[in-house]
């Protein structure tokens, strides 16, 4: 079983790296780019087992404890 976790910055948190990428794209001629925010994707291989609710709740825990810093980031989990 596989899961994909997206971790993104919450609104209002500055993303200087994203801003630099946006500036880069604009200077390359993609003037329509108004904002870029950089996040992270985790592809996670899981041993099969347990009902989906349990798998999801354990993934939720992993995100809150380690994969995301809840002060600045939020996350979304997809089961693949």
């Amino acid at each position: 079983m596989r899961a994909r976790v997206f971790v993104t910055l919450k609104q209002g948190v500055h993303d200087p790296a994203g801003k630099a990428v946006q500036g880069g794209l604009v200077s390359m001629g993609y003037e329509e780019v108004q904002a870029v925010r950089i996040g992270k994707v985790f592809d996670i291989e899981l041993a099969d087992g347990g009902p989906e609710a349990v798998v999801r709740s354990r993934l939720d825990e992993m995100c809150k404890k380690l994969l995301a810093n809840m002060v600045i980031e939020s996350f979304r989990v997809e089961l693949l």
Partner: protein
Amino acid sequence: MSAALRSRVAVLTFPGSNCDADLRHAVALFGMEPVAVWHKESTLPNVDAVLLPGGFSYGDYLRCGAIARFSPIMAEVVRFAGRGAPVLGICNGFQILTECGLVPGVLLRNKALRFTCRDVNLRVQGQTTPFTRGLGGAALRLPVAHAEGNWFADAESLARIEGEGQVIFRYEGENPNGAIHDIAGVSNAAGNVVGLMPHPERYVEAALGGTDGCGVFRSLAAAIGGSAHTAATLEAGA
């Protein structure tokens, strides 16, 4: 109190710490006994304070300090801090303290996206802590060396931290990383846990380029002079 009883200060080492030796040197300069503690230890030796050094624990993978926070010793540090004992995190040590929630906020990438290594001007303020006794209002010049020192908290937390006097160090003049409200260092609500980005341990001797870091270690020596471990040792011997 017997003169032979020196205060003992644990200096943690994580894989990737690189300021731990400097920190032990600074501790010893001010008459305290540094005790090196490897992050895999699950108990703290008998000490009066715990210091977390700068460096790049776990290569800064995922987020700075995010993995070190789960080192076995950290559960013990959280308990130690919960008893009101002094804990200080410098640079990467500060990042680890924010990741465990011992001090508020988070340290983001520097606004200019560059590692910055230079001297900065600071003002000491806020509540009295074991690391800033007698330093209230002092202007210090200390070196910073980091890529992720851009302290941030949401508006509500920020207002509370400012209101409770938990901003302990603030950049004056130039802000090297874009930290909100020019915040360079904060404490927990109780004041016994402090984190800061600048490196006081690098400026404790004129030969190193400055002595403005001395006050932090002098303060700690005074704060733990007659406390915890010393008292416990005396009781045990009585």
